[in-house]
């Protein structure tokens, strides 16, 4: 699949449909049925995007958001990954933390925003805390099920070939759990990305893409909102494709544990 020619052919209807959608939107925006402040034309959105990038405000907001996401996710991984692995290996630890995780997980991270605002004040600490909460559980649970899902045959084969505990852990359990760990990272990022935007809107902190969108509402700047939305979507997409896709290709696909799925 996915030779260059084939890819080009499958791109064509896609481009057509995007053009069509853009044309419909543009004619709606130009028809004057809706006020221009609410439904800006595409050139206006483009101009807002270019202006925001040129005066440095949009990159600044994007950086602030990325900083929060990456720091929160880093914390979530450094807690969730070891804890999840320990839960997968030792039953008492599993017995203690699993009920807690199952009880906390169904609480949406945004529900904690008001509580965290009271505890940590408005600003970075709250946003990072929310990201940490949102990203922790996917990481934890995937690490846990990943370690448990390692094929017992591999472990037995490893020990039959004379591997000691440590070698078994590093050479069999961890690589064996890798597809799950990557799935966990992916999911954690998706959740973190939602959480950070919501937290920035609610815990207003002057910087951040979520805050820009929310702030633009006050001034009826729908063009700025749509431009920021585009940036949010773009960053999310880039992470999904470039960061996690690359990670997957460099590890589990190269090791032949999962087949390349996407063309």
């Amino acid at each position: 699949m996915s030779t260059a020619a084939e890819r080009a052919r499958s791109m064509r209807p896609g481009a057509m449909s995007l053009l069509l959608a853009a044309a419909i939107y543009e004619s709606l925006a130009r028809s004057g049925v809706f006020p221009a402040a609410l439904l800006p034309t595409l050139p206006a959105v483009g101009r807002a995007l270019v202006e925001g990038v040129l005066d440095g405000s949009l990159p600044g907001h994007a950086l602030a958001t990325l900083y929060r996401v990456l720091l929160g996710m880093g914390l979530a991984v450094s807690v969730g990954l070891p804890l999840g692995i320990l839960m997968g290996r030792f039953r008492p630890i599993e017995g203690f933390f699993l009920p807690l995780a199952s009880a906390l997980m169904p609480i949406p991270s945004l529900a904690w925003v008001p509580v965290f605002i009271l505890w940590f004040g408005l600003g970075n600490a709250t946003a990072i805390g929310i990201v940490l909460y949102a990203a922790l559980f996917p990481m934890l649970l995937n690490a846990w099920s990943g370690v448990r899902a390692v094929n017992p045959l591999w472990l037995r084969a490893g020990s039959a070939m004379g591997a000691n505990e440590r070698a078994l852990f590093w050479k069999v359990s961890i690589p064996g759990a890798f597809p799950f760990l990557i799935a966990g990272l992916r999911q954690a990022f998706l959740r973190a990305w939602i959480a950070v935007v919501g937290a920035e809107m609610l815990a207003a902190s002057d910087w951040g893409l979520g805050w820009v969108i929310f702030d633009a509402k006050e001034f009826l700047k729908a063009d700025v909102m749509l431009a920021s939305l585009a940036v949010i979507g773009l960053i999310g997409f880039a992470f999904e494709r470039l960061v996690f896709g690359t990670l997957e290709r460099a590890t589990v696909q190269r090791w032949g544990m999962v087949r390349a799925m996407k063309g």
Partner: protein
Amino acid sequence: MQSVGAGPASTFLAGSPSPGESRWRAAVRTAFPFLVVGAIWEVVARLQVFPPRLFPPLEVVAAAFVRLTASGVLPHHALDTLLRLLAGFALAAVVGVVIGIAMGRSRLAEDTLLPLISIGAPIPGIAYAPLFLLWFGLGNVSAVLLVGFVSTFPIVFNTWTGVKAVKEVWVRSALAMGADDRRLFGKVILPGALPYILTGLRLGLAQAWRILVGVEMLAAVPWGLGWMIFGAREFLNTDVMLAGVVVIGAIGLALEKLVFQRLERFTVVRWGMMT
């Protein structure tokens, strides 16, 4: 999307007794960690490490819960939140399944809609909230539409995948046995795609639930759990907020356990398509 390990844990709430262990012991084993955490919380709160307004002891939270429930305020908030969730989700389920099936069956629909959906999906739903508020005003309409919009994406994706995944052999053998279009659809394609559709509905509902609380905070709806905890912040009513958070967690758990696992047991598991 999101298939590997998407929800092994959600189906695994602790308390499943291991063989040879009585139910009672399993319950104790599950309760133990909560007792430990509760005790730590209580000690920290009583020592007044943090101001008690911000870090209330558990019995204060429980008292707030009882007070609000008895006065009918909490049930009213919860009911409004649930109604909003159901309205948005019902909208998303109908629209999402229809679009997904259309995309699975018709090449034209697939080519037209797939690019739009792939572009819309990676943007977190809550980011649309201010836009929806601008377009549809503060209040219920925006909240319901946004929840519906957000949960449509996973439903469309999974329905589309499911329809595509129906075995060609089944379709052909049904055609060979003389099934017309309607029966083919009702008896083969729909049941065949159902495990995927259910997964989509489940992901959609989870998505909707995760967004709804945040949307209620932003949309200034008069009633709703999200609004209740956000409003309580103004008065430093941490006890009310924590009681609200507990209710939110309980509803989320109930949705997962009571609604979807049961639905699955009655359909795809009974038909032997999933274990």
